[in-house]
């Protein structure tokens, strides 16, 4: 269990566990993949309502 490249170059302390990385910057609006909007399942599909009486 290691992410040696990141740990080395970012100097991540041993008492920290690496969770995820987030790329961050100003969007290039001309980059085609930036226009992609991923789909979401419906609230109905995701949710169980209990005790609502309808």
């Amino acid at each position: 269990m290691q992410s040696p490249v990141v740990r080395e170059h970012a100097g991540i302390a041993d008492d920290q566990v690496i969770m995820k990385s987030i790329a961050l910057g100003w969007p290039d609006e001309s980059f085609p993949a930036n226009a992609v909007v991923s789909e979401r399942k419906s609230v109905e599909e995701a949710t169980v309502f209990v005790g609502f009486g309808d």
Partner: protein
Amino acid sequence: MQFDEVILGRRSIRGYKPDPVPRALIEEIIGLAMRAPSSMNTQPWNFYVITGEPLDRIRAGNTERMVAGVPQSREFRQGQAFAGQHRDRQVGVAKQLFSAMGIARDDKEMRQDWVLRGFRQFDAPVCVIVTYDRVLDGSDDTPFDCGAVTTALVNAAWSRGLGTVINSQGSCSRLSCASTPE
């Protein structure tokens, strides 16, 4: 920007302008994100914000290991490979992305190029590594709380005109993290 506008407008950004992001703005965004709730207010999260040369070295190191076929290494647990509806969704968004990028299903070279982009953090000028305190290892609350702060962070960034993409490739070293559908 109103809440709905942020939530509904945010998308994952995989192409960036090279312009630097001011440190003060990143501090503001992290400050907003840390209003996220956490279990018993433990706030297990920490951030390493990387830019410039160290980030270039990470990109180069990730790419080198990836190309050399070094087995992946990540520090969080991964379940079994996706199947059923989860696999369908994974394939669905990959198809959307490949279609937008004009990458054909059988174009191995371009697909590989796309995977390598992921390992380069999509060439973003900044990378934020979310870590948590190792003494909390083993609790499911901890990754849950890291997810909360990360969601808040990407939305705070979007509200300031900044794009993000949450990825694992940038913080691990090899392929199966980024496995793309056949």
